[in-house]
């Protein structure tokens, strides 16, 4: 039997495989349950760093700029993402406010900053301080980013508002729209391979 480090276990059904060598565009699937075991790594450390930086810039733009403006009888009203979170808090919906703050702001921001930090050191060939706890935390929080759902939600809100108000989409929502593309790209990347890509010095 091969050494355990060359093995791969399917997360969904516990089937054991030898680590596959994948060519461009190839995807390894579990023979028992069909889960994706691994994909060809399109992006190296440099490309991943570039992607994270771009996503971070879009995220900052999406949060600083207003998302949508409504007009009614010459009066205008716009909001940013944080404006939305704060208003929900003051409108007796603290639970919704907290869910929104966490899934649209804190977790995505943490994930991008942590990944940027790990990649920055990774490109120098070493593990960043806090590599282990950050990798574990990123794994647990990964599923709770909902920025792409927010983009669709903003679209629905704009269509609903159109019946009564003038609707002007602002720069923030365009930044979010582009950010969605990056989130989709990241969804196809298994960040667990950073464990192998950035070897520990001690070992």
């Amino acid at each position, binding site marked *: 039997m091969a050494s355990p480090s060359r093995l791969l276990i399917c997360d969904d*059904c516990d089937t054991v495989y030898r680590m596959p060598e994948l060519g461009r565009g190839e995807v390894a699937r579990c*023979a028992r349950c069909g889960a994706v075991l691994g994909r060809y790594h399109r992006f190296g450390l440099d490309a991943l760093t570039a992607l994270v930086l771009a996503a971070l810039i879009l995220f900052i733009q999406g949060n600083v700029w207003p998302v949508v403006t409504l007009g009614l009888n010459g009066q205008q*009203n716009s909001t940013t993402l944080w404006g939305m979170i704060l208003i929900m808090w003051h409108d007796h919906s603290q639970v919704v406010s907290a869910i929104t703050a966490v899934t*649209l702001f804190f977790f995505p921001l943490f994930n991008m900053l942590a990944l940027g930090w790990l990649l920055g050191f990774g490109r120098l060939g070493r593990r960043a301080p806090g590599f282990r706890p950050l990798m574990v935390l990123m794994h*647990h929080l990964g599923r709770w980013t909902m920025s792409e759902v927010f983009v669709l*939600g903003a679209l629905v809100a704009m269509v609903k508002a159109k019946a009564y108000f003038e609707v002007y989409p602002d720069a923030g929502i365009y930044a979010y729209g582009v950010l969605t593309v990056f989130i989709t790209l990241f969804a196809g990347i298994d960040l667990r391979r950073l464990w192998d890509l950035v070897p520990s010095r001690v070992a």
Partner: protein
Amino acid sequence: MTAPPRADQLGLIGCPVCSLVSRAPNVADAGCSRCGSPLQRRKPASLTRTWALLIAAFMVYIPANILPIMRTESLGDVDDNTILSGVLELWDKDSQGLAVIVFCASIVVPMLKFLALLVLLICVHRRTHWAQLQRAKLYRMIELIGHWSMLDVFVVALLTALVRFNLLSSVEPLPGVIFFGLTVVLTMFASRSFDPRLTWDDEESHG
């Protein structure tokens, strides 16, 4: 063709966090040598936790649908919306495409999650081999689409922040949206606590 071996049979255990493979006997309490996460053969008390979270989610799902999620006021005219009436309104306002999307995200996806987890749980309890592959796919699907149900929560939040024209027109959130947000969070926790490997356990004894 013989079935490929499973980690359990080989005395191996995979780390759920960093995917490092360890030999099971060496790691009774130690945890993963690479990332320190606890190593367990299966998620602990998976069935009990999933049932508990699923039942809790269903209990908040009822008020989430019955209670209105937002109130629209314009010139003293008060209109309360539920999840379903929001979909119908979109349909009537000639946004049928969007109405279908919102219907899927707010009504089909939560229902599907309840039904799917119920089927997955009952099948594991009955140790049946029925439709194992389809059950595996079903699980992956609800994990993938689960968070899209948050759509209506964000719609209400954004409209509340935008429609603030004093007496002319305003929108305020109502308790239904809180229950709905909790439903989504609880069903996400429920599907995370279900262990899809249980679907394939017990296979060896029949092989």
